[in-house]
């Protein structure tokens, strides 16, 4: 049967491998036309945090980025991933505010939304999908976020999907495995269990290749009637990203499937991303060795490295195993939050406090207090009652209970003025004003990017930044250019 591909390079690939700060607007615009030519089912393009990175890190207008990509991509839908009722800030926003967010995203060319609620709260997902549909014609795909826990079994996922089937606003589903935990055996039971309850709505698979499972479980899923596999192109695939696209295509064809893409264009696109990764010093995703312990603790590489370093700085490097064990315990006590941002950092920091402190939960971060207060949504499993009362039995918890929610739309309009345009208003409402100012004064983003020229431009910028330099030497194998300032006419 025919399998489609969804390209995650610019959003999830960029996030999993390059901290979401790898790619700017020009990098993406240069890839747009080729990406369109490949014929992906959709492109996993942006999220509210990627929009914030565009402003903060690159002074790129994120709305303009969407518009210009859409202009170059008339057929391939650009996808926006959202937890539903949040935009850049961690708090749940006023629904009217989110309505405006969804309106502007669609007006600028987002044509597919992923609803990712790590808590799997049915009403929250349905409500957000309803608002999206009222504000445009984009399709809505609901995430079944995979994890290994006592509660997340096949029946749990099928039940969640079935409950969402009540909404006419959910067009399709996907199994989202952000940590790459899903084995071939598990997909054989999970995919059919979900397909059995979703009628003729499609099911896609998004399995990170962190342990090497993603490529295999995706291939297995192709046999089970899924409609599309999510992949990263070239250096944007593999590692903790999604399986690499060209390899996936070859494997699908080997298994007898048709793949609905232009392979020559995919090869050109892969070549572009490779040249870009080299020029920008972005480490390409590489196939990773299997790590059995990961299935137990589910701590992503980045978080693990940070905790290890923190322990070593405290002279407690030898306690790492204790912290890992404590992480599993904390996760269970907090009701098995799925280990996707921001929860891995939250859970593991708590485990660290518990191990190095006098008593467990003596020290608790604001984020954990907010989490148990339900400010991130309702935990999938109830929080352990003893832990809950320990966490809330402190004065600071009272302060956070009283903490102001996201301001109302009317108040925000009052603060930022009624005449400011909607897109600028949405950014100002959730981001520091000086960052928005800097973005606006930077003007329009560049439209093109040539990897071969980028290092030269960087060199020239560095030289221009040092007008007082008296000696400049450029050296490379077989070439040495030395410029020394001296007397001149």
């Amino acid at each position, binding site marked *: 049967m025919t399998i489609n591909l969804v390209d995650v390079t610019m959003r999830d690939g960029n996030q999993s491998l390059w901290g979401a700060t790898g790619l700017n607007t020009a990098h993406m615009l*240069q890839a747009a*036309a*080729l990406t369109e*030519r490949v014929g992906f089912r959709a492109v996993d393009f942006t999220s509210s945090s990627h929009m914030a990175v565009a402003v903060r890190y690159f002074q790129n207008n994120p709305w*303009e980025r969407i*518009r*210009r990509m*859409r*202009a*170059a*991509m*008339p*057929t391939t839908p650009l996808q926006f991933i959202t937890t539903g009722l949040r935009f850049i800030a961690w708090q749940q926003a006023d629904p009217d505010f989110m309505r405006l967010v969804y309106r502007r995203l669609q*007006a*600028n*060319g987002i044509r597919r939304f992923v609803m990712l609620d790590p808590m799997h709260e049915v009403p929250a997902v349905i409500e957000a999908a309803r608002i999206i549909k009222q504000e445009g014609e984009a399709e809505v795909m609901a995430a079944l976020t995979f994890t290994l826990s006592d509660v997340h079994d096949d029946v749990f996922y099928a039940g969640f999907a079935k409950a969402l089937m009540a909404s006419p606003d959910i067009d399709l589903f996907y199994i989202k495995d952000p940590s790459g935990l899903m084995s071939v055996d598990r997909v054989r039971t999970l995919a059919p269990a979900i397909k059995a309850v979703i009628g003729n709505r499609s099911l896609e698979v998004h399995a990170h290749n962190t342990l090497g499972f993603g490529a295999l479980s995706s291939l297995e899923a192709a046999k089970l009637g899924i409609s599309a596999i999510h992949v990263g192109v070239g250096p944007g695939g593999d590692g903790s990203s999604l399986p690499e696209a060209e390899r996936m295509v070859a494997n699908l064809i080997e298994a007898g499937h048709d793949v609905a893409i232009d392979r020559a*264009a995919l090869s*050109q*696109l892969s070549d572009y991303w490779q040249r870009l990764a080299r020029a920008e010093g972005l480490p390409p995703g590489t196939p990773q060795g299997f790590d059995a312990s990961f299935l137990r603790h589910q701590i992503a590489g980045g978080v693990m490295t940070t905790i290890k370093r923190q322990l070593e700085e405290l002279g407690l490097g030898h306690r790492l195993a204790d912290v890992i064990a404590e992480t599993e315990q904390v996760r269970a006590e907090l009701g098995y939050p799925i280990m996707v941002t921001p929860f891995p950092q939250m859970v593991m920091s708590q485990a660290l406090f518990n191990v190095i402190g006098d008593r467990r939960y003596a020290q608790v971060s604001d984020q954990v207090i907010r989490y148990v207060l339900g400010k991130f949504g309702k935990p999938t499993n109830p929080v352990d009652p003893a832990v809950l009362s320990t966490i809330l039995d402190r004065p600071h918890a009272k302060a956070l209970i009283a903490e102001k929610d996201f301001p109302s739309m009317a108040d925000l309009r009052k603060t930022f003025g009624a005449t400011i345009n909607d897109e600028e208003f949405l950014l100002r409402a959730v981001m520091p004003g000086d960052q928005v100012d800097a973005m606006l*004064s930077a*003007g*329009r*983003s560049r*439209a*093109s990017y040539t990897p071969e020229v980028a290092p030269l431009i960087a060199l020239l910028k560095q030289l221009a930044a040092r007008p007082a330099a008296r000696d400049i030497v450029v050296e490379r194998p077989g070439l040495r250019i030395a410029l020394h300032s001296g007397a001149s006419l």
Partner: protein
Amino acid sequence: MIRRLFIANRGEIALRIIRTARRMGMVSILGASEADRDSVPAKMADEVAIIGPASSAQSYLSVEAVIAAAKAAKADAIHPGYGFLSENAAFAVATADAGIIFVGPDISSLHAMGDKLMARKVGIEAGLPVVPGGAAADKEAARARAEETGYPLLLKAVSGGGGRGMKRVDAQQELDSQIDLAMAEAQAAFGDSRVYVERFIACGRHVEVQVLGDGISAIHLGTRDCSIQRRFQKLVEEAPAPAMPDDKRAAIELAAVNLTRHLNYSGAGTVEFLVDAETFDFYFLEMNARIQVEHPVTEAITGVDLIEQQLLIAGGAALSLTQDMIQPLGHAIEVRINAENWQADFRPSPGTVTRAAWPAGPGIRIDTHMTSGGEVTPFYDSLIGKLIVSGATREEAVKRLGSALEQLSIEGVDTTRDLHRAIAVDERFIAGGVDTRFFEGLAA
């Protein structure tokens, strides 16, 4: 979807098209004359097909030669650029007959806008205001038309374009001799002696609107002002049109979109208007059914790659841009650098460019095919490059224009650089919103 794109043009526009085609993953095939065999576009194209000798009549203007080369190259589309065969309906028909996509509007739109009479008729049908006037088949009819329109008036070739054969008549006693001249020139240049008699708006501005359509929906990408002209040849273009009330600008843009819709227009086009510099009343002149020389100023303020849009639409895609998505930012100015001696009646200056140092930096774009050692041949027009500057405000763009022109240095041939330096410091230009008499004032 277009895979192999044949470019039936030369110079900077050929190079401009090659760049976008490459980014879109297309194979570019340049149809070049013998004289352009070693040009920069020929070096940059993936493939080169020689279409004929230097003479454009036997190469760039030869429908048969271009179609034969495109067929031999197995092209699935032809981009005609501007000038040459770009608005030639017979060429578009021949392209379609050869089973090749013509990157341009439907043949019906080319016919509708192909001559000024038809364009005027269609404009009136679409509800656009037009300048008083009409066609005249002979001298007698021209005199009668002149009675209606009054003086000063303009005589234009019905089949003409680009200002060729255009005459201004200020008083009745000049009319007869000017009609003879205009008709003779029209016959020689376009094989059609009919002239068009039109009221001349003495204090007029040339304002045009860039449009895009896919046959169903239509949008505009704002205005351009091309009032700085010499003998109806544009010298300087800017976007948006400066010093114009917002409501008048919006009305012109709306009129352009109405015409585009009326034609079920597909592709990129430019709707030209004559705007009274004092009242801002506007009159539809014609629609150019192709990419324009001055398209980069629109690209600079909108961020839209117009060549890409042409290729997408020609390839069968629906327009993905909406009017809401067009959010112009800042101001852009383009000056045309021609190899001409502007102080000797703009005499062409062919030869070898011994040094071409084009400016670079933020807010500066150069569209050129000319590098050091390049040849300016006597066979074609004298445009060797375009300097496009942009800034957050018009003031910033004007300032940048001045400094970029200082950096620009072309040796070996005469250029219009110093003319543009004079324009850049002219108080009327700095103030913005000049009319088409600007150039006369500059010379004085």
